[in-house]
């Protein structure tokens, strides 16, 4: 969905696809709100620890409470 936020026009098409009958003026406001919201959602990546690398990926996929890392 993020790619639909790049321009107001692509956003308008996405809103139409969702069958939400927002008017033109509302679309512009909603577009700003949604971009801001998605930016905030992206900020959480750093906190939930999405780790790169095969070994780290294994740990991040384990079910259950996290074990303390390191010695």
């Amino acid at each position, binding site marked *: 969905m993020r790619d639909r936020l790049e321009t107001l026009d692509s956003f308008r098409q996405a809103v139409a696809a969702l069958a939400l009958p927002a008017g033109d003026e509302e679309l512009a406001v909603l577009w700003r709100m949604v971009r801001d919201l998605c930016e905030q959602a992206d900020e959480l990546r750093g906190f*939930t620890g999405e780790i790169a690398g095969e070994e780290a990926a294994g740990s991040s996929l384990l079910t259950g409470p996290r074990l303390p890392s390191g010695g």
Partner: protein
Amino acid sequence: MATGQEVAFSPISEVATRYRQRAFSPVELTRLLLDRIARLDAQLHAFITVAADQAFEDASLAERRLQQGDSSPLLGIPIVIKDSIATKGIRTTANSRTLEDWVADRDAIAVERLRSAGAVILGKTNLNEFGWSIPSADDLCPPPCNPWNPQYAAVGSSSGSGVAVAAGFATAALGTDAGGSVRLPAGQMGLVGFKATHALVSRTGVLHAGSIGDVGALARTVTDAALLLNVLAAHDPSDPDAEPRTSVDYSRNLDGNIQEIRVGVPWHYIDEVPVEAGVRTAFELALIELERLGATLVRVEIPALAYARTANFVVLNAEHYAAHEALLRTHWARYGRSARLYLAQGAFLSAVDYLRARAAGRLAREAVDAVFRDVDLLAMPTSPVVTAEAARKPDTHRRGINASFTAPFNLTGHPAFSIPCGMSAVGLPIGFQLVGRRYDESTIYRAAHAYEQATEWHTLSPPETVAAGGGE
């Protein structure tokens, strides 16, 4: 003999004593409050529906029960209900034209418990449409004004509940809180407002409580808040989040002794948030008072709080859109201009966004629990700003800055209370927040009560001339 003004602003414990002394009766108090509502609420807009006939029926029943020696804890106490909580026989609109005439066929469990305890339900109170967004002029009912200074709006979303208690229209109120919607209006209107541990109070019968919303209450004193939680706390087997607990008398141990209590203050986080100078000063003075009463202040670090605020906002957006998706498509124009945009924005969050925000919530809860191994309570301002107008500035509101101190604890599920601690330059009250370990509301009550008894903030009420003059 108490004046009508004194009676209208009396706390629950005082009203109950006067009933027993036969100084006045539930029917007399109900009449007095309905008269005040009729006289003053045209300016303040606390109510969406005033249920006068039902209130008199409740009051007459309470009067008979009193005469029979019934000692139910809320017998004859006039209470109002946020209009997103279902009430049998009184419409529940959520301040939305989409539900303008909807009447539930049963009470929410929290309302049932109030009625069983003898409460008189005066009516349903105003809110931000569906407890979300910011009010707009085309909402079903216009937004409430703050009775302390009606030039300012009352902060929400349980705005009408706060106004009703602060203006002397009711003795206590039910609200809901998914990001601060009970604690923020309580703070801004000089009341005690609480959100107990997640799901300790039943959410059955609330319009879309979602995964992190809770029923809370607003009252004039800490003792009143304890009496209310005594009635409201009950295991709801239909709620998978609810845990069976042994019952607790929250009004016990309000003895003023807080000598051994350790209060953690997350200064690094408070410093990150744009806190207004007046709010900060009031909070610092509250800390000095807690220390003078014997509490030990400890600086704590919880970096997770900033992420928890953001994650709360993401979770609420996703869940609100999911709840309203179908109705938005078919009834777009029936929603207020503000509400439909706030409800629609969650459409653009992905499943990964939502799951990541929930994961952030679990991590934040672990981080807060870890801090509670070293301290008994956390303290911080309730709101960084004083007025609803400041809270609703687009950049502040969209990033959840106004809920910086309240929202994290909806996500983590810890109990959190707002207690009056000061007065701003514009004549609106300021509150501070105490947060406790999950299911340890008693320690919050103890500390809050000791602070309340040492200060006079809870004894203040809006000048009647202001409330009566009203208007903008």
